């Protein structure tokens, strides 16, 4: 049996709302791969947040720039890369503290990276000064569901 390797590439304009294309494409891929519904919802939200960060912060809402989204499938995982022309996020990832938010001691926004890390199996942010930066997200199939190509 051959391991499966396939990829899909999207090029999105840097306009809020277009993250839905990446979300829905990833959902379709996830269903084909056999991910359960709850993991597909996790992936959709994580990808939405990564794309919104790329659109707003990486590409500064400049519609002349594109956000590149690559979905790469293997027999047991789906890796998504979201690439923009920016220099990458500032670290560390801000952990939302609802008590501080409710007392206006922490801004109400800024939960995107926290949600990404919480919803996928692997998340990292990579900066390459010459070509921009990307978020890399990975979700893995449960062992019994690994895809096989006969």
């Amino acid at each position: 049996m051959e391991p499966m390797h396939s990829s899909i590439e999207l090029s999105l304009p840097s306009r809020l709302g277009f993250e839905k294309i990446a979300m829905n494409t990833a959902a379709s891929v996830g269903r084909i791969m056999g991910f359960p519904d709850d993991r597909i919802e996790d992936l959709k939200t994580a990808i939405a947040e990564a794309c919104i960060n790329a659109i707003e912060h990486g590409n500064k809402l400049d519609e002349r720039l594109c956000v590149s989204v690559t979905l790469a499938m293997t027999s047991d995982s789906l890796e998504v890369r979201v690439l923009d022309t920016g220099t990458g996020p500032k670290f560390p990832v801000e952990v939302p503290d609802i008590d501080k938010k409710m007392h206006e001691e922490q801004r109400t926004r800024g939960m995107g990276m926290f949600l990404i890390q919480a919803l996928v199996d692997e998340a990292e942010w990579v900066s390459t000064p010459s070509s921009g930066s990307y978020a890399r997200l990975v979700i893995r199939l449960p062992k019994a569901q690994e895809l096989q190509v006969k």
Partner: protein
Amino acid sequence: MADKGTQVKMEEIAGGAGQPITVLRFVGDITSTSQAAVLGTYQGLPDTAKQILIDFSKVEYLNSSGIALVIQMMIAASKKGQTIQSFGLTPHFMKVFTMVGITRYTKLHVDEASAVAAFPG
């Protein structure tokens, strides 16, 4: 592609003890562009509104910017001594709201009846 936008309907219903409950029924997306719908609507409520019920059952898409607006509404309500209950989130967004801690300040109910029953009479 246009953002779907946020529609909101406001109505008043009676709670278990006959007290007035203001219901905000959101429809569509709740995102960074929803400030007028979320905060603008809330700020337009009369000062007599003490119990506020948020209906998320027809919300199709929520992102972290939209959740931030919900938190801003909760902050404003807290300052006024208003009580908020919510219902209608999908299991996924109940999980996300729990992750960011919103459940410390409002309970997330599965349906309108249980949310209404949770308000003190």
